[in-house]
């Protein structure tokens, strides 16, 4: 990894290490080094620097919520806002623990798209009616409750758009 004027450029070895960590972050430096044909001390040093510069943000467990017995529902909420208030609405949404992801989109109108979880339809409705709808600048809301999940993954070095090839 090269650092110049606070900008980072990752070399092929860094990318290979990231790819290995995204596959399994619990594998040892020795195991990664062995699979890449480099010394474990090199792996350690590169990972340490990538952590230091915020390229590796954190290590976390990916939990299968269904297996935990939780019967939550997930909904995709589209919030139409007054353009002057949209930043503030998005920031307030981010503060709610029920809201997992928040995005803004500029299509015909300025929209906020948010992924929300709730215990059931009633608590989802209560959250939207009592927390989201009363926010200054919210014009209307469309909510779609997810009925079946086909895929959920994080963008990684492995599936980054640059590496994708058409099916």
């Amino acid at each position, binding site marked *: 990894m090269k650092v110049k004027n606070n900008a980072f450029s990752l070399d092929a070895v860094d990318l290979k290490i990231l790819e290995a960590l995204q596959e399994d972050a619990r594998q040892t430096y020795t195991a990664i080094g062995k699979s890449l044909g480099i010394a474990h001390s090199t792996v350690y040093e590169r990972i340490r620097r990538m952590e230091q510069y915020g390229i590796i943000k954190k290590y976390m467990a990916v939990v299968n919520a269904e297996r935990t017995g939780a019967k939550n529902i997930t*909904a995709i*909420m589209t919030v*139409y806002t007054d353009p002057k208030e949209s930043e503030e609405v998005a920031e307030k949404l981010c503060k709610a623990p029920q809201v997992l992801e928040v995005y803004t989109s500029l299509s015909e109108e300025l929209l906020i798209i948010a992924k929300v979880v709730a215990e059931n*339809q*009633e608590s*989802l*409705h209560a959250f*939207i*009616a*009592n927390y*989201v*709808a*009363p926010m*200054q600048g*919210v*014009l*209307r*809301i*469309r*909510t779609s*409750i997810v009925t079946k999940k086909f895929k959920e993954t994080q963008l990684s070095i492995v599936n980054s758009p640059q590496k994708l090839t058409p099916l």
Partner: protein
Amino acid sequence: MKEEATPKVLRTFPREKAFYFFTSVGNYTGESASSLKEFLDKINVVDVKALEFHLYRGDFEKWMVEVLEDKELATKVKSIREGNYSGITLKEQLYNIVAKHYKMLCSKV
């Protein structure tokens, strides 16, 4: 007219106590009512689906009791629910009952 002299049912409430009209779970119409007068006006504005949605969930009655503190109006609205109306008939019934009640309250002030 001073705010203290106004009966609670005729006051204007802050945004967090307003009634928000939804057509189904999570689908907010963009219309809300911060007072009984505004609620009356919005009956003729919102999609009738929103009126059906809230009436049969008991949301109107809940708001009338908890925010407006008007049990009498809630009981009148409940009678519409029990009549199993829908569409334009429901809209007219609801409007007539709320308008009559509002007029009666105003005449007392």
